[in-house]
């Protein structure tokens, strides 16, 4: 009998009942909740007179709507305020743990879950948010769901889940200096395409993945959804255990050893088979920059903007033309000649301490270019903010000309006051360059934190490795 993949091991261990075909009712170990996709779920429970099955397996967070200006200021948008207040009232009514806006633990749901040790290997974990794939970095099966499913998990602690196909992306060799998990994630999406992972769960493997820190693995798995995959996975190892140990939700005392013994069984068997198997060479990955309006529209910094006329597929050609028109770019332009006026360092992809350190390393002793209208750093949580401040990173950012903000989803998605204006061009460490994602008419280029910092200094995209080779002026 062929061995099992990590995905199949976790899936099989959670089957409560068979549903025929490829479907099974799976037990869901953990649910994260935020204010945007939960109000209708709580309302559904109320209307049906149902309670939440396991409040101890649920953690709620305010992040999407939260302004990143000082917490002493009120939320001025009445609709945002209503949604925030609704979650606070619902959490109170149903007995759900919630970190409010003044709590130091508050932050982006996908930063806080791991930070609190709520995310652990081998779990099934859901959230009404597509970037739930982030938690796969711990070898946990984590995926985004819609509001009806949020309600279903609240009421039953289960979900009908169709067994996905197994896909493996192996990145062989060592990442070159200056190349980060974000570049790896974007390079993979460029190769796989935005729908290449549809119906699949991607396991990331290979030396370059194993060498990543937990922060790097989270960045990688965060963007699994941008390849169309429901979830990403990295098999847990000592790096994982070390990260979890001592965190508030981590197993304590004798239970720690029992847990680690269990976690060590979570890997893909040697003889397991994958439906799709893709290999990349780490040495070939350059700093990546997106040029279009889909994350698959990505190129190395050394490239030029593509010419739609050279694309043979008519639908793709039309899409590329529309993208370039929206992005205000001309075919054949060097990516390194594209100037930016906004820089955003933050989001569930890149707002962890390691991301802030990488950006601060570039900004130390340097200042942003005069054409930058707004450069901001938004830490992923209050704890990330405090850690960064303890290391003096906030001063580096402020001295360079960046704004140092309070935690939240911020400029990633145009739901709170942080937006890029129409025709504004932003070097962003977030995850989606969709039309209007950062605000109506906003033009987004996805990059790593180091590349975003380099763009802020140069006022245009530039290879951070070249910038770092020179002394600050």
């Amino acid at each position, binding site marked *: 009998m062929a061995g099992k993949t990590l995905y199949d091991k976790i899936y099989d261990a959670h089957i409560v009942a068979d549903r025929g075909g490829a479907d099974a009712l799976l037990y869901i170990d953990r649910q994260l909740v935020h204010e945007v996709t939960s109000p209708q779920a709580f309302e559904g429970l109320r209307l049906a007179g149902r309670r939440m099955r396991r409040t101890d397996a649920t953690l709620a967070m305010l992040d*999407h709507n939260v302004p990143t200006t000082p917490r002493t200021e009120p939320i001025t948008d009445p609709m945002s305020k209503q949604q925030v207040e609704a979650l606070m009232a619902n959490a109170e009514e149903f007995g759900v743990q919630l970190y409010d806006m003044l709590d130091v633990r508050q932050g982006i749901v996908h930063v806080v879950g791991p930070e609190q040790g709520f995310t652990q290997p081998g779990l099934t974990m859901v959230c009404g948010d597509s970037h739930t794939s982030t938690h796969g970095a711990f070898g946990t099966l984590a995926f985004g769901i819609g509001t009806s499913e949020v309600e279903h998990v609240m009421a039953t602690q289960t979900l009908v889940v169709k067994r996905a196909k197994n896909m493996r992306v192996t990145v062989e060799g060592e990442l070159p200096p200056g190349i980060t998990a974000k570049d790896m994630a974007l390079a993979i999406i460029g190769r796989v395409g935005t729908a290449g992972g549809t119906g699949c769960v991607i396991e990331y493997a290979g030396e370059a993945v194993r060498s990543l820190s937990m922060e790097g693995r989270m960045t990688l798995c965060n963007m699994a959804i941008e390849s169309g995959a429901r979830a990403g996975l990295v098999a847990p190892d000592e790096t994982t255990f070390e990260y979890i140990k001592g965190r508030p939700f981590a197993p304590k005392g004798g239970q720690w050893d029992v847990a680690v013994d269990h976690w060590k069984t979570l890997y893909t068997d040697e003889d397991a088979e994958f439906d799709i198997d893709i290999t990349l060479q780490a040495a070939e990955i350059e700093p990546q920059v997106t040029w279009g309006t889909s994350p698959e529209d990505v190129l190395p910094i050394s490239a030029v903007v593509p010419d739609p006329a050279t694309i043979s597929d008519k639908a793709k050609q039309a899409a590329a033309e529309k993208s370039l028109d929206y992005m205000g770019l001309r075919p054949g332009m060097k990516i390194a000649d594209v100037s930016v006026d906004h820089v955003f360092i933050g989001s569930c992809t890149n707002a962890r301490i390691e991301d802030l350190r990488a950006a601060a390393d570039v900004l130390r002793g340097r200042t942003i270019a005069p054409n930058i209208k707004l450069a901001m750093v938004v830490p992923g949580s209050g704890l990330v903010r405090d850690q960064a401040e303890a290391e003096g990173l906030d001063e580096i950012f402020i001295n360079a000309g960046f704004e140092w903000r309070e935690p939240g989803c911020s400029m990633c998605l145009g739901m709170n006051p942080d937006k890029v204006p129409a025709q504004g061009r932003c070097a962003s460490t977030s995850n989606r360059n969709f*039309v*209007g994602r950062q605000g109506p008419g906003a033009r987004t280029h996805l990059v790593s934190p180091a590349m975003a910092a380099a763009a802020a200094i140069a006022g245009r995209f530039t290879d951070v490795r070249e910038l770092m080779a020179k002394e600050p002026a």
Partner: protein
Amino acid sequence: MEPFTTLTAVATPFYRSNVDTDVIIPAEHLKTISRTGLGRYCFKTVRYDENGNLRNSSPFDRPPYDKGKVLIAGPNFGCGSSREHAVWALMDLGYRCVIAPSFADIFFGNAIKNGLLLITMPEKEIQELLKKATGREFTVDLEAQTVKAPDGKVTEFEIDAFRKERLLGGLDEIGLTLQDEKAITVFEERDKMARPWLYA
């Protein structure tokens, strides 16, 4: 949820690749705490320009497509964010069925739960249907698993039995699952012994 049996309606041609859920409903309109009233923001950037005027390039809002209840779309429809608001907005705009070469996974799951029928068809058949979507009515029959074009040509489609049954019956999925409550409790009792640290 309202059951889906048959639907006879105008089909709107909207063939584009990778229509993401930010296009279907921009994030700024997710600040609602109800499921209704999102239709006017559906495809906002496709339908309106910066000044709020209807775009000539938009197929929506003008006859005959203002009566559209079937959407004929491009590959990877509904990719991106998990927002169920995308489904609520489409349905509030009047749509009950989307036909496309492929759909993103989360959107697919969300649609079924609200009674929005998604039909996957090969690219070639989509192109044929697009040509016929000129304002006359199509008939979608879920029981028979067919789409009848205005010229009378019938195309069959696949749908798995579990989802078909739920759509036809308009079933409450939570209610269905709770019939298995005993199995859930058994799972929890066993799991509490194996992984006690996950239980408060």
